[in-house]
C-alpha cells in the first residue's frame, strides 16, 4: 500500500453515466476538487446504454502523462490488478465507483489506500446493494468490507437508499445527493400530439422492463401512446420508437401530450421524469414511489391508482387546460430536490468527513507498509511420484527463486499426502532447505461446519452450495498461515473450502480426447478451476482447453513457461559418444499409448532388425510386462514369446533423478511415445544433456519444440509402423541429431531462474 506522492486532492470518478457526470463533476469542482479522473473504457452491454466518455477532465490532472495514459487504457469496471490500484494510491485520495465485478472491488479493498465510495443511485426491487454484492461475490464479500472499515463509504444518491441495506453498508452511509446540472425550466412544450410518452428501454432483453411494458400496454391499450428508450433487440410494435436522434427526442418532448411514469419503487427512480418537468411537459405518475419523497403527496400529477391515472390522462389528452396548468405549475417543486444550490452543502460536508477520516488513517501507513513474510503453499493433492512430483517441486522452487528475484520476503511450503511409507526422505533430497515440507491429509467438512469455518474466516454471508468441502489438514492450522494455495493439478475429491486465494496448475484435459472418466465424473475438477483465482498452464494447447472445456474466463488463465529440472551441475557431453540404447519414459497411464509403442518396438526388433536396446523408465513401468492391462496383454504375450526382443527391452521402473540423468546422458536418444498430453519436460531434460528426442506428433510437443528450438524428430503415435521406422531412422542418425542439438540448443532457456519471477508474480498478484 503506497503513500500519496503529493498533497493535491484528487478523485477518481469511475463512472461513465452521462447525466450523472453532468451533475457530479461540476458539483465536485464547485467544492474545490479540480482534479478528477474519469474512465475511458466501459463495458459494452445494454446496462451501459446511457454511458459515454469524456476526456475534458484530463487536462486538469497534474499526474504524469504515462500514468494518465495507463489509467485511460484500463477497464476499471472489470479488469484491474493490484498494480493498478497501488499506482492509483500514489495519485488519488478518493475513488468513486459502481460495482460490476466483485474481483475489482476486492483487489481495490486490498491495494487502494484512499477512500472507496460505492456510488449508489438505487436499484430495482427486489434488488438491494447488499443482495447485489452477495450475488456477485458468491457470498465472499464481507471480509473485504471489514478490511476497509472507515475507508469505505456507501455514497447514496438519495437519502433513503440505505434503509433496505445490511448494516455493513448502512453503517457506512454518506449522503452525496444526485441532482441535475441545471433545474432551469425551459418550457417549450406544446402538447399538440395527443399521445402518452412512456419510457421503457430494453423490452425484449430485460425481464424487468418487459413486465413494465406489458403492464403499461395493458393498462393503457385504449390510449394513443409512444414508447421511448433504446431497444437492444427491436420490438415489433410501431409505437415502440427505439433509439431516436436527439432532435426527434426533443421534438417528442415538445409535442407529445404528457409523460406517464409508472414506478412505485421506493428506492429507485429514473431520470426521465425530471427531464419532462424541466421541459414543461405534464407528468402523470404513480404514488408510492420515490417521487413522493421528492414532491410530497399533494401534487395533482400524482395518482394512487391506474383508474385515476387513466382519468387524468384522458382529461389532458382532451385538452383540459386547467388540469394541465395545475400539474405544470406544481410539479416544478420536485426539481427543488435536484437543484445543485440545495445539494451543495451535503457534498461539502460529505467530503469534509472523507478528508478527516483520511487524515486519521495516515497514521496507519507505517505499519501497513511493513512487509510481512508472504507464505505460499504448493499442494500436490494426490499421491503422485515421478514427473508429477518433480513438476510440483519445481513449481515450489520457482516460487522460492522468484520471490528472491522480486525481493519479497517469502516462505514456500510444499504439501504432500501423508501416507505411511509412501514418500521417502530421498524423494525430497534435492529440495532447497528453505522450502518447508508438510505432509497433510484431506479433511472433509459438512455444509454447516464449512459455513462456520467461512464465517470465522470473515465471510459472514457465504452459504455452502455443496454437501462437503475439503481442507488441507497439515496438523497445524489447515494452512491458515499461508496467504495463497497453489494446487498442482485439479484432482480434488470435492470443492476446496474457498477461504483462501487458490491457484490451480492444470496440465491437461485428456478426458476431452481419451475416454478416461464416465460422463460427468470430471465435473468436480472443472468446478475447482472455475472457482480459482488463477489457472496456470504451460502450453497454448491446454490454455485453450481451460478456456473451451473447463469454461474459465480468459482473464484468469495464465500461460507460463514450462519448468525443467535444473541440470546446471551436469555437463553436456561435448564429445559425441555412441550408445547402444535409447530411453522410453512412460508410466502406466492409458494416454502413454503403450499398445502402439509396444507394437512399434516389436516391429523395430523383429522386422527392421533394430539394434538399440530400449530402456523403459518411469513410475510402475517395471510392472508393464508382469501385470499388463487388458488392451496390451496380446502384444506383451507376443514380445514375451521372443527371447531376442525380451533381451532388447529393459524395464527399469522409477529411477532416482541422479540415476535417471546418468542413464539419459549416455543414451542415443529419448523416445516419447505418448498419444496426447500437455507435453513432457523429459525432452527438455534430454536436450539439456545433449540428447535428441523422437516424439509423437501432437500440438503440445510441437509447441515445446518451437519454443525451445529442439529440432526434434517426429512420428505418428497412431501408426506403429511409422513409429518403428522413426526408431530405425533415429538408430541410424542419432549421432547427427546430437551434433545438430549441440550446435543449436541454448541450454540457458531451461534455467528455472529465467522463469521463476514470472511464476512468483503470477501468484503474488492473487494476494
Amino acid at each position, binding site marked *: 500500500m503506497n503513500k500519496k506522492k503529493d498533497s493535491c486532492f484528487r478523485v477518481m470518478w469511475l463512472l461513465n453515466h452521462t447525466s450523472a457526470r453532468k451533475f457530479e463533476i461540476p458539483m465536485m469542482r464547485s467544492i474545490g476538487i479540480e482534479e478528477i479522473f474519469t474512465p475511458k473504457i466501459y463495458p459494452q452491454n445494454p446496462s451501459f446504454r446511457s454511458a459515454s466518455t469524456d476526456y475534458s477532465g484530463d487536462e486538469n490532472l497534474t499526474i504524469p502523462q504515462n500514468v494518465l495514459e495507463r489509467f485511460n487504457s484500463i477497464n476499471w469496471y472489470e479488469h484491474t490488478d493490484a498494480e493498478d490500484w497501488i499506482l492509483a494510491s500514489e495519485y488519488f485520495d478518493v475513488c468513486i465507483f459502481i460495482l460490476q465485478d466483485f474481483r475489482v472491488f476486492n483487489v481495490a479493498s486490498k491495494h487502494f489506500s484512499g477512500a472507496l465510495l460505492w456510488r449508489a443511485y438505487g436499484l430495482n426491487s427486489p434488488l438491494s446493494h447488499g443482495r447485489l454484492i452477495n450475488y456477485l461475490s458468491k457470498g465472499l464479500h464481507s*471480509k473485504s468490507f*471489514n*478490511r*476497509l*472499515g*472507515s*475507508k*469505505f463509504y456507501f455514497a447514496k444518491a438519495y437519502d433513503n437508499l440505505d434503509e433496505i441495506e445490511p*448494516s*455493513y453498508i448502512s*453503517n457506512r452511509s454518506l449522503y452525496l445527493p444526485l441532482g441535475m446540472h441545471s433545474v432551469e425550466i425551459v418550457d417549450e412544450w406544446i402538447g399538440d400530439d395527443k399521445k402518452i410518452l412512456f419510457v421503457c428501454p430494453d423490452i425484449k432483453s430485460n425481464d424487468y422492463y418487459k413486465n413494465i411494458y406489458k403492464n403499461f400496454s395493458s393498462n393503457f391499450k385504449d390510449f394513443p401512446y409512444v414508447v421511448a428508450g433504446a431497444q437492444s433487440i427491436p420490438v415489433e410494435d410501431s409505437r415502440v420508437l427505439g433509439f431516436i436522434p436527439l432532435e426527434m427526442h426533443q421534438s417528442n418532448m415538445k409535442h407529445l401530450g404528457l409523460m406517464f411514469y409508472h414506478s412505485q419503487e421506493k428506492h429507485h427512480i429514473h431520470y426521465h421524469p425530471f427531464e419532462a418537468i424541466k421541459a414543461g411537459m405534464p407528468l402523470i405518475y404513480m404514488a408510492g414511489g420515490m417521487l413522493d419523497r421528492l414532491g410530497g403527496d399533494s401534487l395533482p400529477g400524482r395518482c394512487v391508482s391506474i383508474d385515476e391515472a387513466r382519468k387524468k390522462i384522458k382529461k389532458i389528452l382532451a385538452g383540459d387546460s386547467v388540469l394541465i396548468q395545475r400539474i405544470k405549475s406544481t410539479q416544478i417543486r420536485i426539481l427543488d430536490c435536484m437543484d445543485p444550490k440545495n445539494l451543495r452543502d451535503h457534498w461539502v460536508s460529505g467530503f469534509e468527513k472523507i478528508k478527516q*477520516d483520511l487524515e*486519521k*488513517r495516515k*497514521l*496507519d501507513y507505517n*505499519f*501497513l507498509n511493513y512487509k510481512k513474510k508472504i507464505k505460499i503453499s504448493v499442494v500436490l493433492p494426490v499421491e503422485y511420484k515421478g514427473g508429477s512430483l518433480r513438476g510440483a517441486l519445481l513449481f515450489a522452487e520457482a516460487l522460492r527463486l522468484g520471490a528472491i528475484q522480486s525481493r519479497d520476503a517469502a516462505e514456500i511450503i510444499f504439501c504432500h499426502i501423508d501416507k505411511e511409507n509412501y514418500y521417502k526422505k530421498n524423494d525430497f533430497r534435492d529440495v532447497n532447505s528453505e522450502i*518447508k515440507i508438510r505432509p497433510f491429509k484431506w*479433511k472433509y*467438512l459438512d455444509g*454447516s*461446519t*464449512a459455513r*462456520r*469455518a*467461512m*464465517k*470465522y*474466516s*470473515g465471510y*459472514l454471508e457465504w452459504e455452502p452450495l455443496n454437501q462437503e468441502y475439503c*481442507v488441507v489438514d497439515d*496438523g*497445524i*492450522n*489447515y494452512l*491458515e*498461515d499461508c496467504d495463497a494455495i497453489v494446487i498442482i493439478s485439479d484432482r480434488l475429491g470435492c470443492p476446496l*473450502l474457498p*477461504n483462501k486465494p487458490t491457484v490451480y496448475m492444470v496440465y491437461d484435459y485428456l478426458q476431452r480426447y481419451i475416454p478416461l472418466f464416465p460422463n460427468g465424473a470430471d465435473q468436480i475438477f472443472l468446478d475447482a478451476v472455475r472457482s480459482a483465482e488463477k489457472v496456470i498452464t504451460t502450453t497454448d494447447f491446454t490454455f485453450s482447453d481451460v478456456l473451451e472445456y473447463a469454461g474459465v474466463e480468459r482473464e484468469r488463465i495464465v500461460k507460463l513457461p514450462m519448468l525443467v529440472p535444473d541440470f546446471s551441475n551436469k555437463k553436456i557431453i561435448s564429445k559425441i559418444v555412441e550408445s547402444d540404447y535409447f530411453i522410453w519414459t512412460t508410466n502406466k497411464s492409458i494416454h502413454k499409448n503403450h499398445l502402439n509403442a509396444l507394437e512399434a518396438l516389436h516391429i523395430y526388433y523383429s522386422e527392421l532388425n533394430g539394434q538399440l536396446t530400449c530402456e523403459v523408465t518411469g513410475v510402475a513401468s517395471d510392472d508393464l510386462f508382469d501385470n499388463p492391462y487388458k488392451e496390451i496383454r496380446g502384444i506383451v504375450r507376443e514380445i514375451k514369446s521372443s527371447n531376442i526382443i525380451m533381451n532388447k527391452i529393459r524395464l527399469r521402473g522409477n529411477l532416482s533423478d541422479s540415476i535417471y540423468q546418468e542413464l539419459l546422458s549416455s543414451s542415443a536418444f529419448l523416445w516419447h511415445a505418448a498419444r496426447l498430453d500437455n507435453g513432457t519436460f523429459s525432452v527438455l531434460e534430454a536436450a539439456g544433456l545433449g540428447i535428441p528426442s523422437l516424439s509423437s506428433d501432437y500440438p503440445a510437443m510441437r509447441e515445446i519444440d518451437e519454443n525451445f528450438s529442439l529440432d526434434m524428430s517426429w512420428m505418428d503415435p497412431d501408426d506403429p509402423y511409422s513409429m518403428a521406422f522413426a526408431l530405425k531412422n533415429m538408430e541410424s542418425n542419432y549421432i547427427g541429431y546430437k551434433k545438430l542439438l549441440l550446435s543449436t540448443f541454448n541450454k540457458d532457456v531451461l534455467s528455472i531462474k529465467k522463469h521463476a519471477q514470472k511464476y512468483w508474480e503470477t501468484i503474488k498478484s492473487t494476494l
Partner: protein
Amino acid sequence: MKKFGIYLSYAPTVDLSKEGLGRYLASFLKGASESGRCQFVIVCPSWSIESLNKLFSAENVPHSVFEIVSPDRVPFVLRLREFFLNFFEKKERKSFKKRILNYIGSVAKGYVDKKTMDIVKIESMSGFFLYSLPLVGIFLFFALLSPIIIFLVVIFYIFSWVFKKTKNKLRFFSFAHRKLFRMLYSPKDDGVIFNMFQSMQAFESIKILGLINGMKDVRAWYCPTAFWPSFNNINAPRLLCVPDVVLNEFPVGFSKIGGDRFIETYQNVINTVQGGDRFVTYSSAVKWNTLVKRYGVDAGVISVVKHAPSMLNQFVDIDDLNFNDTASFNYAKALFQGALKRSTNVNYTNGFKNFDIKFIFYASQWRPNKNIISLLKAYNFLLKKKYIKFKLILTCNPALSDAVMDFLKKNNLFNDVIFLHGLAVDELAACYKLANLAVNPSLSEGGCPFTFTEALSVGTPVVMSRIEVAEEVLDEERVQEVTFFDPYDWMSIAQKIEWALAHKEELLSVQLDFFKKLSTRTWGDVVNEHLDILDEISSVNAGKEISNG
C-alpha cells in the same frame, strides 16, 4: 476520587474464577488498589454477583477499590435451576434396586451382629437352645414362604428382560432425562437454554444500562472483553478491550467445536468491535493485524497496554531461611505427586514411584491455536530418534481432540505423554518448578504468553513460539535467539527443545536476566496506563459537553 466503571455481562452460570478474564480482573483491581488513583464501579448481571464476590475474596482484592452494582433480583428460572441443582447434588444417586438391597443388607447385618454378640455371652446348653428358638422360627417362616419368594424373583427377572427389550421404545424418556441433566449441569450446550440465556442477558443488559445512565459520577466505562455488543449502548466515554479474535485465525479448527453457538459469539464480537469507538489491546499484533487490518479500525483510536508478568513462585516458595530451596522442591514434589494421581492415564501414573522424573511441561487447554500436534510430533521424534527420555506433561484434556488421541495411539505415547487436566494453581506452580523445561508452541495469543514469566518465576527455562506477541515483549535479540522456535515446523520445535535441554544453564542465565527486567512492571503500571486512557477519553467528552454549552 475519580470513579470509572467496569462493564460485565457474563451469561448466567459462568463461574468467573474459572475464566482467565476473571483472574485478569482480580489482578487489575489489585493494581488499582496499588495505584490509589481511582475507584471502580463494577456493573454486572444479578447472577454474577455471587461469583464475583467469591473470586475477589479468593484473590484478596481489597474492597476499598471497588463496588459492585447490579439489577436487584436473579430471574426466577435461574433460581429454580439452582434449587434443582442443590436437590440433585444432595441426593446420592443410587438405583432403587440398590437402595432396597442396601437397606435389607444393613438391617440383616445389624441383626446378625447383635445376635453374634448375644450368642457369645450364653454359658448353658438350655440357654443356647432357648436362644436358638426364634432362629428356627425364622427359618421355618422363610421355608414356608420360599415358593412366594421364588415366584417374586422370577417375576422381577421377567420384568427386567421386558424392560431391556423395550428400552429403545422408551428412548424419549432417556432423551428427556439427558436433556434435563444437560440443562442443569451444562446449560450453555443446550440450544433452548442457550437461547433463554441470550434473552435473559438482553433483558438484563437493558436494566444494567438503566443503572449506568443514572451514574453521573462515573467518568468513563471500561469493558474487559469484546463479547458484549450491549456495551456500545452506554452513552458515556467507553474503552473496549479486545484481547484477541482467535476464531479469525483458526477458522477450520474452531468450526468443529462449539457448533453454531460459536457463530453467535463471533457475531457478538464483530458487532462489539464495529460499534466501538476507543480500544485497548494487550499487544500491537492484535491492534494492527486484527483491529486495523481485519476490521478497518483507525489505528489512532487503539492503545496498547501490555500485561504485567504473571508469577507462580508464591505458590511453591517455602519461607524458611535454613533450607528454603530444598523445602520448596519437596513441597512441589508433594503437590506433583497428588496431581499425578489424577492424570488421564491413572493406571500408569498411580503407581509411579520416581518423583524426580525428568519432564518437559506445556500448560495449556486444548484449543486449535495451541499447536499440540506439532509439539507431539517434535516430542515423538526426540524420544524415538534422539532418545531424549524426558516425559512430556500437558495440562489439556486429550479426549477433546480426536487428532491428539489418534497421534498418541498411533505412536504408542500414552505412557510418556502425561495429561494432568484441571490442575489447581499451586499444582500448576509445582509442575513448572519441577519441569526441566517449559515449552509453549502456541500459534497465536492476544498477548505474550504467561509461560515465560510463570516458568522463570520458579526457575525453569522456557522455549516458545516465535509469534509477534512474544517478539514484542521478549524484544532482545539474544533472548529471542535462545528462546524462540518456528511453531509451524515441528522439527524446529524439536531442535530447540533438544538444544535447550543440553544447554539448560546457558538458557536460564540469559532468560533470568531478562526476566528481572520484565518483573519491574507491575499490575499497578497496567492500571495506571488504563487510567491515563480513561482520563483522556473522559476529558475529551467533558470538553465536548462544555463546548456544547
